[in-house]
Each structure stands twice: as structure tokens, then as C-alpha cells.
């Protein structure tokens, strides 16, 4: 699904990712754990195609296709989704309009017809209900006036509507209380049932109590220094990064 080889990435001429390789197979859940500054978010943003992240070496293959030259929206068309650590507030754009434009953009990219307004509403209603998101919130402007938890819930609804092949979730669990954390976990687990592969980027082990990863990676200073099963997360929690590394 996702194959990253010898990736090097610079931000403002400073190398952040220093030779990273990663392979995620369809339906797998991988967790990348690491301290602040390890380059986790840089990895997520690079995979999503953010333009101030400069790939200086290596390759990113998605579903057998080199996506490193694709624009962010084209990568979404290919089936990628990025969940934000800090979802952006967009005054003046309603959530529903945003999601419908997004979904139809993706469908057009794939050569499919637009989804009708009625069909779309049905889809959103179902997904919002599954994730316990109040439909009224979807009528409001994108993330404006949302609490931290509501923003993350909104990310999960967007993910469910777009139904990606791979979701990269960048610290989606940060700053959440336990209820919100469960919502995010539910969103991830529901998506998992649809065979979506998931790359969870996280600081803490606690989300992994609700989402069982297939593989855990430890990232330090722009590299993955260790990979293992879910027990690696527990080990990290117990011993700290220094000892595991």
C-alpha cells in the first residue's frame, strides 16, 4: 500500500528526515512513536504532499505508484488521507459544503460522477451518527468554534466520508480527553473494517489501548530505529525512549 524508501526531507534547508524506510500493507495499522522533534509530523506532511517539505532523496510509492510529484489533492484522489494534529478553522465555508466539494473532487479525479446532494446527505448522516457527531455542527463553518475534541471528531467524519485506502493520522490523539480519545479510536477501528491501512503518528501509548497496531515503529532524529509488534509500545511506555533506543 505504502512503500517509503530511504526518504530524506528538508524543511527550510534543514534536514529533518534522514533516511527513512517504511512499508505498510493493505489493512495494516502501523504506529510511529517518537518524541517531539523526531520528525513524525514532517513524515506525515511529506506523505500528504505539503509543499514546504522538500524531498531531497528517496521515494514514496502508494498503491504501486510513485506519488512524490503529485499535488496534495491528487494524492487524496489516489486514496490518501491526512488527519491533522491541528485541524484548520475556515470561517465562511460550511462543513457540509466543504465535505461535499471534497468528496466530489475526489470522485472527479477518479473519473466518477458527482454524488447527488440527497445521496451525500444520506452518507454524511450515517457517518456522523456512527461517530456521534451532531449534524448541526456539520452546518457550521469548518472547525470554527469547535472544541479540540470536536475538531478531531470532525476529522474522523471527513475520513469516513472520503473512505481512503490509507489514512495518515498525525497526532490525532493529542489534547483529547478520554471520551474524545474513544471517538477517535472508534473512527479508526471503523475505518479499519473497510480495509483502510492506517499510519498512526503519536506521542503516547494511550491511543494504542483502543487501537491495536500491527506494527510499532520508534522514530528518533529522522529515522526509524526500531520496529516491532504492539508490545513495543508498552515497552516504550515503561522504559522511555532512551532505553528502548
Amino acid at each position, binding site marked *: 500500500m505504502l512503500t517509503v524508501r530511504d526518504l530524506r526531507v528538508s524543511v527550510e534547508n534543514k534536514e529533518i528526515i534522514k533516511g527513512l524506510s517504511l512499508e505498510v500493507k493493505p489493512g495494516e495499522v502501523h504506529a510511529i512513536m517518537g518524541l517531539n522533534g523526531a520528525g513524525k509530523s514532517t513524515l506525515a506532511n511529506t506523505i500528504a504532499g505539503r*509543499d514546504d517539505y522538500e524531498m531531497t532523496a528517496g521515494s514514496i510509492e502508494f498503491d504501486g505508484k510513485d506519488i512524490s510529484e503529485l499535488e*496534495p*489533492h491528487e494524492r487524496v484522489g489516489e486514496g490518501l488521507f491526512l488527519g491533522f494534529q491541528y485541524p484548520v478553522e475556515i470561517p465562511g465555508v460550511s462543513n457540509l459544503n466543504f465535505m461535499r466539494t471534497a468528496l466530489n473532487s475526489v470522485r472527479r479525479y477518479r473519473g466518477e460522477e458527482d454524488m447527488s446532494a440527497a445521496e451525500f446527505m444520506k452518507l454524511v448522516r450515517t457517518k456522523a451518527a456512527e461517530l456521534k457527531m451532531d449534524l448541526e455542527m456539520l452546518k457550521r463553518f469548518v472547525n470554527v468554534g469547535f472544541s479540540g475534541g470536536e475538531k478531531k471528531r470532525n476529522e474522523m467524519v471527513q475520513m469516513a466520508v472520503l473512505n481512503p485506502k490509507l489514512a495518515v493520522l498525525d497526532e490525532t490523539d493529542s489534547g483529547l480527553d478520554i471520551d474524545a480519545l474513544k471517538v477517535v479510536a472508534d473512527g479508526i477501528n471503523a475505518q479499519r473494517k473497510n480495509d483502510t491501512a492506517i499510519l498512526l503518528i503519536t506521542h503516547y501509548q494511550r491511543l494504542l489501548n483502543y487501537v491495536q497496531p500491527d506494527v510499532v515503529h520508534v522514530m528518533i532524529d529522522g529515522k526509524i530505529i526500531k520496529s516491532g509488534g504492539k508490545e513495543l509500545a508498552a515497552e516504550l511506555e515503561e522504559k522511555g525512549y532512551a532505553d528502548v533506543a
Partner: protein
Amino acid sequence: MPELIKSTYRDQAASLSGTLAGLDSLRDKAIDRFAETGFPTARDENWRYSDIKRLRGQAFAAAQIQSDARIPDAICTTAARLVIINGHFDQERSDFGDLLQAISVRPLANHLMANSERANELRVGREATSVLNTALMRDGLVLVVPAGVEIDDPIEIIHIMHDAENAAAQVRHLVELGEGAKATILERFIGDDSAYWMNSVVQARVAEGAALNHYRMQMDGSQAIHTANAAVSVGAGGNYSACNVSLGASLARFDAQVRLLVDGANATIDGVALAASRQSHDMLVHVDHRMPSTNSDQVFRTVADALGKSSFQGKITVADGAQQTLADQSFKALLLDRTAEANAKPELEIFADDVKCSHGATIGELDAKAMFYLMSRGIDPTTARQMLVEAFTDDALARIDNAAIADALRNQIKGWMMAHVPNTSGKDAA
């Protein structure tokens, strides 16, 4: 300024002598004043952002009556469609609907013919363009809405300029709303590519408890100069609500002077300007709070593309004793290119101590974070930019209470975005 221009306008004023009953002495006064001052320069504070070389460099002829101009389709259900071509009211091509059963609509000439004393109610004006309008006015409409009469559908006044190279239209409209009356005026301005000058003055009086909505859709031709002045007074509990959407002309100015004369008078003055390459849009507002408990609110949003310019000068004055005044002003400009320009000059003069007045002005680019967020959901950069610009301009359209007009304005803005936001990659956007 060349004397030849002044003498040409003096001759034009003289040739109009006797055409509008009771107006000659006002014309004389105006042309004398114009001869004294001429057109302003960039050193004049109110004109510092407007390049009026063309007005200073040539005398415009009086635009002639035209009958073959195409009248644009209506954008909403209207109470009446009143057509003005090259500054001349075209009764034949106007559609009064049932309006005359409820209110009085007359050409300026008939209004003054009926009572020449009423010429005294016409203002000479402050700015040179308004003063010249007084000296050279030929035609216009006088709308009188009697007390208590409410006209739901907008009264559309369509100004068309056609085949008017180097010619000017000097239009003067008067709008009077009696106590408790309600009306919506939709002014539209369109024109061909001739290098004309549309100079319009609207005088409006909103009596106690009356409500006037004044929407303007300025889409003059690409070579045109558009200058407009709205001089409005509002009585107790009355409300004046304006929205000026400026898309056309090479130089466009909209100058609103609103006086809140009695306790409880309200005004909202909003606007959107979209400046494409080498276009300059100026919006000037002066809200004068004369009495206590008067409210005003302004929301202006402008977008300027490469080599485009948008400027806003907003003045709020609160007279001594005008306590409990609430006045707010918000101006935001979006620059789509490094060569785009925006100017903001808020000005508050407050002589009362128990008031709440605020203003904010920001000039910026599209939010790169928001762009990436939209693109990270599959939305292409062109659509993403359009969504953000529409969201931005929508702030200034929020008070339009006629959905069809608001939609029509949104569509014009969308059309402008399609034409002026090229299919650039997200890399340029960020």
C-alpha cells in the same frame, strides 16, 4: 488643470439653463465652485488613492440619448425596472409594474416642473465630482414612498452606457421614504468598452421608522470611470442598509455620506470590491452620528489581483452629546499577487464620552494553512482559492436581505474569480 476643461464644462452648464425648473441658480453656484477648485489631486486626502488623471486631462462631452442598448435580464423579482441609458431616463423601455399605484416615480424634470421650489433640496455636494454633477445634471429619478407604504420587491434602476466614447452621464436620483415606509433599491451599472464617465449622485432621506435597502452592482465597462456619491440622512428609528459591490470600470469610486440625525437612527454600509489588473476601486464612507443612541456598522471586503488596487477610507464622527453611539467598522483586503495593492484608512472623530466605537483593518494573502487543509481533502487549488475568496467576501454580503440579489452578487464574484484566479498550482498559492 487646463482652463479649457473648466470652460467646456461651463459651456455645458450654460447650455442646460432652463432645462430643469428652478435649478439654474444652483447650477451657477456649482459651476462657479467647480471653476474655483477644479478636480482634486492626489494631495487631497479624500482622493489620495484615486488616480484621476483622465478626469483632469480631458473634458467629457455630454453622453447622448441612445435607444439601441441591450437591457440586461433581471436578477430577481422586481417591483419595477427603470432604465437609464447614457444618463437619460428611458421611459419607453422601463417597466413600472404596479409600482405607480403605491409610490410616486418621476423623472427629475417632472418633479421640478411640478414644484420648482424643490430644487432647493438638491445638494451642491462636497467633492468635485458631486459639484460637477450638480452643475451638469440632466436627468434622474425621484422616488417618493409615502408613509407606511412597504414595497417588498426591489426597485431596479439599470444604468447602461452605450457608445459613449469620451462622454459623461451626470445622473441625480432622489429617494424619499416617509415614516415607516420600506423599500429596496437595486442600482445596476453596466456599459460597453467605450471610455466613458458615469457620475452618479443619489440623495436619500429616510424618515422616522423607515427602512431603505440600497444595493449597488457596479459592472461598468473596462475603460470606464465610475464615480458615485450617496448622501443619506436617517431619522429616528430609521434604517439605511447599503451594500456596494464593485467589479467594473478602470477607476471606480463609491463615496457614501450618511448622517444619523435623530435618536435611534441606524445605518449599515457594506461593500465588496474586486480589482483586476490596472483597476482601482475606492470606497469612502463617512458616518456622522449627530444624536444619541445611533448605530452604524460597516463591513468591507476587497480582493485585488496582480496590478489591481483597492482602497478604503472610513470615517466615523460622533458629535458632542451623541452618547450611547455604537459604531463599528471592519475592513479586510485580500491580495492575490505581490503586485496587488490595498490601502486602508480608518478615521474616528469622537466628541462624546459614553460611546462604543471600534474599527479593524487587515490586509493579507490567502491563508496557506487553509489552502493546504482544503487540498488535503482532495480539493484542487483553483477551487480551494475560490472557496476561500467567496468565504472572505461573503462577510460583506451577509446583510443583504434579498436572497436572489445576494445569490446574483455571489455569482458575479464567482465569475470574477474564475476569470482572474488562473489555474495555478498549490505551490504558487502557498
